[in-house]
């Protein structure tokens, strides 16, 4: 796998005090039957930061996202999201927290019996938002992902890439404070993958949303670190060599159920760890 040359000279600056983390994992472990998936995982995500999470298949990347919003209960450790202790909350309390967090699932997870506008506006309908406002906001967010024409279609009528974009629209319609992306480019062709990454970048740069991005495509994360969304041209543009995007971008690598790297692009590029060097080469 080839990786773009990193035009990085200095690490990204930390933007928030420790008490202001959007997400904080402290010594979190989880096992399914006999298999330990995550063991003693600790990291934090600052407000406004985007953290890309890497690891081979089965390393617990998706599990980590599900733990973050309480879809899975941790066996031990503590998870805080937006100041709430997820690991101590009941399912009823978690429903409230989840309204402030958006998630894009690996296979989109669109409701196949609902049309695109019902999928995207699901959360608003649940909150009994007036129908006119729902339609307005759904159309607006579908324009954001450039899929307004799919308003009345069923998910089965969409391509894989379009489904991911609809899933992103569904996740961002309420402008959540944190976004979790689970392999948003997995199984997509390079052109469609770029479109998805551009959308994620647009969300990051326009709305400054904190995000965890699970991916196994290193180039996606490096593209995000070295490009910025330009609202004037409505597309991403490469930053001059040595300049980083305004929004902090960091990287986390999982191996054998543990975190083996957590740092910025500069630290990743200069890591001396054999496994990491092999991984990014």
């Amino acid at each position, binding site marked *: 796998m080839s990786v773009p040359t990193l035009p990085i000279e200095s690490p990204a600056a930390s933007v928030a005090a420790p008490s202001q983390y959007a997400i904080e994992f402290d010594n979190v472990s989880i096992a399914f039957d006999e298999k330990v998936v995550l063991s003693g995982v600790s990291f934090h995500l600052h407000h406004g930061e985007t953290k890309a999470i890497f690891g081979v298949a089965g390393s617990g990347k998706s599990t980590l996202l599900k733990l973050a919003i309480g*879809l899975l209960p941790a066996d031990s450790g503590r998870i805080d999201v937006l100041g709430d202790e997820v690991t101590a909350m009941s*399912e009823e309390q978690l*429903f409230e927290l989840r309204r402030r967090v958006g998630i894009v*699932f690996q*296979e989109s*997870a669109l*409701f196949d019996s609902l049309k695109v506008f019902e999928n995207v506006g699901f959360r608003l309908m649940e909150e009994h938002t007036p129908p006119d406002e729902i339609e307005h906001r759904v159309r607006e967010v579908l324009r954001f992902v450039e899929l307004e024409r799919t308003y009345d279609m069923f998910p089965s009528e969409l391509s894989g890439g379009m489904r991911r974009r609809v899933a992103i629209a569904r996740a961002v319609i309420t402008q959540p404070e944190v976004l979790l992306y689970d392999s948003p480019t997995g199984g997509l062709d390079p052109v469609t993958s770029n479109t998805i990454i551009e959308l994620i970048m647009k969300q990051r740069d326009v709305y400054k949303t904190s995000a965890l991005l699970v991916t196994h495509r290193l180039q996606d994360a490096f593209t995000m670190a070295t490009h910025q969304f330009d609202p004037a041209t409505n597309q991403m543009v490469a930053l001059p060599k040595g300049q980083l995007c305004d929004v902090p971008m960091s990287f986390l690598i999982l191996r054998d159920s543990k975190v083996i790297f957590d740092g910025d692009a500069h630290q990743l590029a200069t890591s001396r760890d054999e496994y990491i060097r092999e991984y990014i080469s």
Partner: protein
Amino acid sequence: MALELELISPFELAKDFALAVQEYTLLSAQSLANFFRRPLYMADMVQQADLIGFGSLPIVVLTGLSVGALLALNAASTLQRFGGITLIGQLVSIGMVTELGPLITGLMVAGRNASGMASELGSMIVTEQIDAMRALGTDPTKKLITPRIGATAFMLFFLTIIADLLGLIGGYAVAHLIFGLNSQQYWTSVWQILVFRDVFTGLVKPVLFGFIISTVGCYYGISTRGGTQGVGRSTTQAVVASSVLILIVDFFVTKLIFAFFGYR
């Protein structure tokens, strides 16, 4: 590839069974409690009532007519030998209203809807739609399970009444057309033999059966593991378990009502 057979100890099987019973009980209790919590998804309940109730109508009409007619046909040959053909209306009436109407309707609806619920919810599990719903801040037991329980129990009550009526009509057709029984004689005996206990038995059972069908179907649906193969397995298990449970509960409810109201 060599076929590997894994032997499971009886202790493990018993543990799994106890766990399944515990999870089923918790799910059922939570779904019932949801009737008293907001939001109550009335639109979803009406939609499910349409799918379960009106969707099952053709099969209930056919089975109700057939069972009533067959009951009359089989009973008539015996009654005729003792010169008691006029009692045919009583026999069909008691048989349909207290036992066969609720039981056959329950089993038919179980075959049609427990499998439907298990496959629908199972597919949603394997495609992460249930997780997506939870992630969007919606409780799947409130949105998906409680409306199905309410709709099934409500509609099975009325479907059973329809099945009972059609069973009586089927019995009448046989008694009148084949055995030449007078219409008034038939319908009078049908009406006169029924007492409060019979009607009560016949109307309590469908509510219980509806609860069993929906909770078992939903339980197997949301417990689905192992992709599309798992969905198929859940569907089969839901039909088998709900049918067996209906038969068991039917026996005990009948016994209980007899104990409470006394034998005829």
